[in-house]
């Protein structure tokens, strides 16, 4: 029987199934941050259950951490308590924590790959919907709720029904200035935010193979925006080269053993998927969202759609609501939309290549009058690398703020947020109402698009640049 990569990983982690109950799936790696874990630790304490495999856990502090004045205590007492609780919980249970003072600190989905903590073939969970990021390594990685965080800590397993599989095939080559982010947004534009519900996506095709590991992480990161809990890419030489020598990567004789196993994981030729979607990368232009759902997306050279252009009644109503919230008129050219704010960062686009792309666009420009632009590295390692390359200087010279790492304005929990009515070009993953601050209006774009918008004060069709 021909098998998909998902099926191979599933089978190698199947522990047991009691009649009438869901199968138990073994979990290799458990990632944690301060927001979705405290109640799980509390649950363990109440039921007097220990953490079964502390070595399987890697924790960080990212959602609530300030991106400036990090030497001062966190001003918000509730956020401070959450950070302190995380430190206490990790200390009490002997867990590996990259706390705010650690040189390894940063956004969970950025720091984990930096240390090679996730390998091909693993089952990886985290109380965070963007856990799908790690599928870029050919792992089955998905977000879970806090009750499940507790379940995994107690048992190293999760009751899980098998998902359906979806192949997203992206053929052809990307045009100049088009990136992994544009692929990710274009896919959500095709599937819609519920299209992948109940499925695990495997991304394949020439355009996916051509992406760097960082680009693959960006694509997998947004699987959840297509409704899929997990997205994955077959491991290849790029994956192995990325992992080799990293802190938690296999060493010596075990590297060879691991490599043999990892190569066996790829989907068998002729294996069947429950759904198949095909895109051509040459058709993908720089993408910009216009609404309040990631599926409300068009090419930058396009216009804001009119409600009547949607046949589906639900989508028509959603369009009306989104235009009202976003204060946009139908048929406005995307390049005529003026912005107030630019945010580059997040687990979607907070890696070194993202800052290289953006700096390349920002070099020699000035942030347009009335626009605030912030660059927030995904980790201290990204920050230090960027500074070594002089990227921080490019941003600062262009009038940007160069911040400390954290989730920052992706979800605006740490005080970095839009004011009511402000419009932002953001490299994050969600343009929901109020996501970046109550009344804030978010347009999702790639780092290069964000940097071009910062200089122009409105969106720019960067595919027309040399």
């Amino acid at each position, binding site marked *: 029987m021909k098998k998909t990569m998902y099926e191979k990983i599933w089978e190698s982690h199947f*522990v*047991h199934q*009691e009649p*009438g*109950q*869901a199968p*138990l799936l*073994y979990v*290799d790696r458990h990632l944690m941050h301060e*927001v*979705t874990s*405290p109640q799980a630790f*509390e649950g363990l304490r109440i039921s007097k*259950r220990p953490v079964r495999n502390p*070595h399987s856990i890697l924790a960080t502090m990212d*959602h*609530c951490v300030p991106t400036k004045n990090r030497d001062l205590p966190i001003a*918000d007492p*509730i956020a401070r*308590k*959450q950070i302190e*609780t995380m430190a206490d919980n990790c200390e009490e249970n002997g867990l590996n924590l990259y706390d705010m003072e650690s040189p390894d600190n940063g956004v969970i989905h950025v720091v984990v790959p930096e240390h090679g903590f996730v*390998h091909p073939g693993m089952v990886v969970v985290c*109380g*965070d*919907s963007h856990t799908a990021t790690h599928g870029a390594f050919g792992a089955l990685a998905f*977000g*879970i*709720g*806090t009750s499940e965080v507790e*379940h995994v800590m*107690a*048992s190293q*397993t999760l*009751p899980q*029904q098998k998902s359906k599989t979806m192949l997203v095939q992206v053929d052809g080559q990307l045009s100049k200035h088009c990136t992994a982010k544009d692929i990710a947004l274009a896919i959500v534009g095709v599937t819609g*935010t*519920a299209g992948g*519900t*109940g499925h695990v996506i495997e991304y394949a095709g020439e355009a996916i193979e051509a992406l760097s590991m960082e680009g693959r992480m960006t694509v997998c990161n947004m699987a959840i925006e297509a*409704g899929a*809990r997990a997205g994955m890419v077959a491991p290849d030489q790029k994956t192995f080269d990325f992992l080799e020598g990293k802190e938690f990567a*296999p*060493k010596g004789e*075990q590297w060879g*053993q*691991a490599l043999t*196993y990892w190569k066996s994981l790829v989907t068998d030729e002729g294996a069947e998927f429950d759904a198949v979607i095909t895109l051509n990368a040459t058709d993908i232009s720089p993408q910009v969202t216009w609404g309040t*759902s990631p599926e409300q997306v068009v090419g930058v050279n396009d216009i804001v759609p009119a409600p009547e252009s949607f046949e589906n009644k*639900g989508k028509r*109503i*959603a369009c009306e609501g989104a235009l009202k919230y976003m204060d946009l008129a139908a048929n406005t050219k995307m390049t005529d939309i003026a912005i107030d704010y630019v945010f580059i960062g997040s687990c979607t686009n907070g890696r070194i290549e993202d800052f290289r792309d953006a700096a390349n666009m920002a070099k020699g420009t000035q942030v347009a009058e009335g626009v605030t632009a912030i660059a927030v590295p995904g980790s201290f390692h990204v920050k230090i690398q960027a500074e070594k390359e002089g990227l921080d200087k490019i941003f600062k010279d262009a009038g940007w703020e160069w911040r400390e790492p954290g989730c920052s304005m992706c*979800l*605006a*929990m740490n005080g970095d947020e839009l004011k009511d009515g402000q419009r932002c070009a953001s490299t994050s993953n*969600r343009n*929901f109402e*109020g*996501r970046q601050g*109550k009344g804030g209006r978010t347009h999702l774009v790639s780092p290069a698009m964000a940097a071009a918008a910062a200089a122009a004060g409105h969106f720019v069709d960067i595919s027309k640049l040399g």
Partner: protein
Amino acid sequence: MDQYKKHESVAALMNRSNVDTDQIIPKQFLKKVERSGFGVHLFHDWRYNDDGVTNNPDFELNKPAFKDAKVLVAGDNFGCGSSREHAPWAIADYGFNTIISTSYADIFYNNCFKNGILAIVVDEAQLDALMQEINASEGVSFVVDLENQAVTTPAGNGFNFEIDPFRKENMLKGLDDIGLTLKHIDKISEFEEKHKQQFPWLWA
């Protein structure tokens, strides 16, 4: 977790699609380290006026007729976005124990059942009929019978629904998932030994 019992309750209506967990419980309320007390923040940005305290009369759940509702009838793809379990905590704390929609985001759906919320899936025609019935008169009550997988309504739009038998059993008995799994701890240990031998680098 409390046992889920057959009940007759007012059904409230939220006729919106793609309601995301950022709306269900906005991020400023995620900093607490407890599980309780989120109900007052449910749908905060829609529910309250700009002062954050007084009710916005235009928000559907603020209608007096929906005051004691335990059943929430909602549009497609309910609970999409973030994995935050604070969303079902807020929904349960507010007083809902049942949601009826055409579909839910996967993580949210799982989270509901961990918190005593029965998430029922219906088809589009059924949802339309339920919505019309709620709109047609004040304070419509539905009977939700999990044991028999049935919902009945005054106007006869009742239906039977599908549910995973494992979830049903746990809801009816109010069972703790972790306790159930730990009954198989020997099987987990046995698997772990085999896994260690097969993939020694995971423990290096």
